[in-house]
Structures are given as C-alpha cells and as structure tokens.
C-alpha cells in the first residue's frame, strides 16, 4: 500500500544540505519518539541535518524558549517547533522570523502567527471522536470519568473539554461524573482509576487524554475484574495500548499518525527553504482504531520502527 502521508508528497532532494532545528516538548514517550523518527528519517531522505532538542516536558516553556534562542544563535536554516505551550513560545518565534529563519509549527500550536505553516491533527477533533464513540457505545446512557492528563497542557485541556462539550450536546444520556488531571504516566493513571472506582460504584466509561494514563486505567479495570464492563477510550497507540486493545480492555483509540506529522513537518521546511509554495495549514488524518480494524492499521505512520532510537549525537 502507499506510504502513509503520501498526500503531502516528498519534495525532490534539495541542492544543498540544510540544517534544521527541531524542538519537541519531550522525547520520553512513543508519541514524540515516533514523531522524532519522522523528522530524522525524512531529513535523511532529503539530505538535511537535524538538531533535535527536547525541553524535558510541557512545563519547561522557558527551556524551549532558550533552546530556540540557541538554535537562532547557531544559525540553523529553519526551525520546526512543537510548542510546549501556545503563548509561551510567541517571543522566540517572532524573533526567528525577524532573523529570517522560517518556523514550521507541528502538532502543538504556538500562539504566534509568524509561522510558515501549522501541521497537526486537531485536539478538538480527538476529543469529539472519543465522545462520539463513547456516546454510541453507551447509547443506553451511562456514567463516565475523565483522566485528562498532565495539568496545564493545552492537549489535556482541549481534548477533555471537547469531549465533554460533544457529549453534552449529542449524548445527554451519558453523564460525566468525575474528572482529574494527573502526571501522564501509567503509574498515575493506575492510581487515579483505582481511586475513581472507589469513589463511584458504577463507572461505564473512561476517557483518556493520553494513552499513558489509559494503560494504567486498563490495569486498574483488569485488577478489579471489570474487563469489558468499562468502555475505555484513549488517544494514540503505543505498544501496550495495542496489547490492551486486542485483549478488549481498551475499547477504542483515536490515533494520531505521529510519524506522518514528522515527515510533513520536514517536507514543509524543505519546500519553504527551496522557495516552494507551502499551504498555511495541513492536518494529518486521525485513525479510529478498535478491535475490529486494528489489524489494518498501517503502523509505518504511527510508530517508529522496532528498536529505533532518537539520534544520540
């Protein structure tokens, strides 16, 4: 089948090797490692050099700002930015623009409009898709909880809010009975779900802003012997998510094609540097994965290949 993301095609290999700075919030989960693979692999194909920097977490806006300054000082040709935070990154983006360094904004949006293009799969849509699935799955009505994810991050806010809005509008029968933020690790998801199940005798569904917490929630549900009795929806598709989905513990995953985001970001950067037209915004398709269609998912667009690691220098 065609390489995923073929609908924003790979440009011809440019005449000279460009140096592209890539800034991501962190590199400690499959989502961003997959994306990193997208950037690095695509850059290789396009003969470009990548400087890949992580801020260490969404909370480290300041560090990302500094890293961006460092890249500018280091005179890179273009910068691909996955913003730790919308407004927080405005300053350096405009600074880069002023220095004539084009900025491509991927996955998490900066509030500045001085970017060449925005490439993402929309958080609102992710929230809505989970809501629609949840609503249909609980057509009889039911009680759901939200494991929103990391406090203070745009994705945790936006996905959760969109989920609640959509439910309220389309499925009044389905009630949100509890929601909580937590660090997005399986351990925190596990604890949170355990506590939810103590708080509420009856839970029919659990929304997850990120699959890190979903994996924890799945454990809790398994341990409570409630497998299949709780509809667990989540975002993204790391190995454990797939395992639990195949086992029927996690019911549905709205999957971002992180590798594709990476490839498109790099392609846009090169196109821009080669003076080609770049559309002001591109959205990478989302996949709704359930037990039934899991085998048809093309992992090339979702995950880095087995054993690939971000370049260590």
């Amino acid at each position: 089948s065609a390489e995923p993301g073929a609908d924003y095609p790979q440009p011809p290999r440019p005449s000279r090797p460009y140096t592209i700075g890539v800034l991501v919030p962190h590199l400690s989960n499959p989502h961003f490692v997959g994306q990193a693979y997208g950037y690095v692999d695509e850059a290789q194909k396009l003969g470009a050099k990548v400087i890949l920097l992580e801020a260490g977490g969404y909370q480290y806006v300041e560090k990302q700002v500094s890293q961006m300054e460092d890249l500018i000082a280091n005179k890179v040709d273009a910068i691909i930015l996955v913003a730790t935070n919308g407004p927080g990154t405005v300053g350096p983006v405009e600074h880069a623009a002023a220095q004539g360094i084009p900025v491509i904004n991927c996955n998490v949006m900066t509030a500045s409009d001085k970017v060449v293009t925005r490439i993402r799969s929309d958080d609102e849509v992710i929230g809505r898709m989970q809501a629609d699935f949840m609503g249909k799955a609980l057509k009889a009505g039911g009680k759901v909880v939200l494991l929103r994810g990391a406090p203070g991050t745009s994705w945790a806010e936006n996905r959760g809010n969109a989920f609640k809005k959509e439910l309220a509008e389309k499925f009044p029968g389905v009630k949100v009975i509890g929601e909580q933020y937590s660090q997005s690790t399986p351990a925190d998801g596990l604890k949170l779900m355990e506590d939810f199940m103590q708080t509420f005798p009856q839970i029919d569904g659990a929304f997850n802003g990120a699959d890190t917490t979903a994996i924890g929630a799945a454990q809790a549900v398994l341990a409570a012997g409630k497998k299949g009795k709780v509809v667990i929806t989540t975002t993204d598709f790391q190995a454990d998510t797939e395992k639990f989905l195949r086992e029927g513990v996690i019911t549905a995953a709205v999957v971002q094609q992180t590798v594709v985001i990476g490839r498109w970001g790099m392609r846009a950067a090169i196109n821009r540097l080669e003076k080609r037209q770049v559309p002001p915004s591109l959205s990478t398709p989302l996949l709704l994965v359930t037990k039934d269609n899991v085998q048809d998912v093309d992992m090339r667009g979702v995950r880095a290949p087995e054993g690939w690691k971000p370049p260590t220098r």
Partner: protein
Amino acid sequence: MTEAYLQESQAPPRGHPVLRVLGKIGMPAVVVMLAVFFGAMNPNFWSVRNLSNVSRQISILSLISLGQTFAILSAGIDLSVGSLIALVSVVCAQAMLSFGVAGGILAGILAGCAAGLVNGVVIAKARVPAFIATLGMLVAARGVALTLSGGLPIAGLPRSFLVIGAGYLGPLPFPTLIAAVAFVAAHLVLTRTVFGRYVYAMGSNEEAAILSGVDVPRYKILVYVVSGLFAGIAGVVLTSRVVSGQPTLGEVQELYAIAAVVIGGGKITGGVGGVGKTLLGVLVLGILGNGLNLIQVSSYVQNIVIGAIIVVAVYVDLARERRR
C-alpha cells in the same frame, strides 16, 4: 543545643485548642484524624478494597522513604531515588526480555545498588556533599534510563512477572507485603545492628564517631547502597505494577520520600528519626493522596490542601515535642 533552647525556653505554642489537644499525641493523631475525616466523607474509604489499594499505592513511597531514612539519619540525603526508579525499571525490563523474570529482577535490583554505590563512593571517598552527589545522580540516572530505552516504554513483560505488582496474599497485595517486610527489616537493622548504631552516630556527630573508631567512609558508602537497594526493589515492584519498563517513572518522588521522613519526625540534619516515624510520614502522604481523590477534590486544589496539611501535621507534631 538550639532545639534544647527552643524546646525548654519558649512557652508552648498558642494556636487553636483542637491543635493543642492533638499536640498531646502528635503525628499518630494526625493520621487518625485524616482517616476518620475521609471515612466520614466517603464510606468507601474504609472498604477493604480501598484500604488495600492505599496500602499498595504507598508501597513504592514506603520503600524509597526507607532508603531515605538511612541517608537522612546519617546526616546525608539521597535526591536520586526518584530517577533510580526509572533507571531500575528500564534495566529490569530490558534484562527480563532477554534473561527471563529472575534475571530481570536481579538486574534491576543490582542496578539500584550499583548506582547507590557510586553515590556512596563519591560522597565518602571524594567527599562531595551528599546533596550535590545525589543531585548529579538524579540528573544522570534519568539520562541513562532515557538513553537505554530510547524514551520508549519497554512492553511485553512475561505475565508471571506481573503478580509481584498485582498479586494478593489473602487481602494483602504483594507490594504491601514487600513494603511491610522492608519496614521490619530496616527497623531491625537500625535498632539492633552495629551498622544501624553507626548510622545514628555518623548523623549525630561525625567527628566524634571517627574518633570513636567508626570507619565512617565505609559505612557511609553502605548507607547509599542500602538506599539504592530500596530504590531497586521499588523500581522492580513499580515496573510490575505498570507491566512495562518506563523511563519516566518516579519524578519528584525523592521530594516526597524526604518529606515522609521529616513529616514523621526525622531531623533533616541527621541523627534523629527512625523507621516508625517514617511510616507515619508515609501514611500521612498516602492517605491524603487517596482520600482527596475519593472526596473528589480537584487535582489543582489537592495541591493546596496537601501543601497545607504537610505543614500543619509537622506543626502539631512539634507542639507535642515542646510540651515534654
């Protein structure tokens, strides 16, 4: 001694009568109060299942707090325990995939001890302050964990391994049992062995200990190996709980481990404290974490409450001290 001066010479702290009554009993009273309160707000708090949840949830904190107790008693500190959990988790999982369950567990625990050994040698031999030595390890160990794992969780661990985190013995979850055993063991070591006595001696007056013939460097190293060992066990248990090796586990746990020791009544400058006190500290934090979720306090507000209670709890405990 300053605290003698403060203790004997100042009028007992004023403050709300309830506090003053509590003050007579101190930290145990705080623990009971919290439990009663949450139980009243949500009966499920007392349910066997929830209590066993709590006990399992605090097992990790318990383990690293025990290691921390050794470090702090000896007038040191171990900031690296949180990162060590991540390192151990990754090492344990990777080793397990190639050498099986036993191999993985062993590798994980050894990794913890090895890191502790490095801490110990840097502190005792190179005489770098414990704060700096273990801060360096905090940063570095996280880096190693990320490098080894490439930032990805290590999935596909054998089912048999998962019992450690998920299994039960009667109503008691395995992690709880492991923590309980660890508590007893640590208590015996601190109160009944030469090593334990020396831990207190180093923390109370290192120079006097040296002049009394205590081989301080040697036992200091041992202290951090012990702390690493407990981090190792914690890392293995947590890895089993989350059925995968995770390079992101344990962040800021070091602060809570230290908090547990000090909340219980341990002195951050060493020499004073013990396993029993640490247990109280762990309970306060554990009950808060679980109870506030059960009564559905928003996670933002939870921070405020937890912050306040930590302070009040210690205040009440000291109020008792001063009344002696």
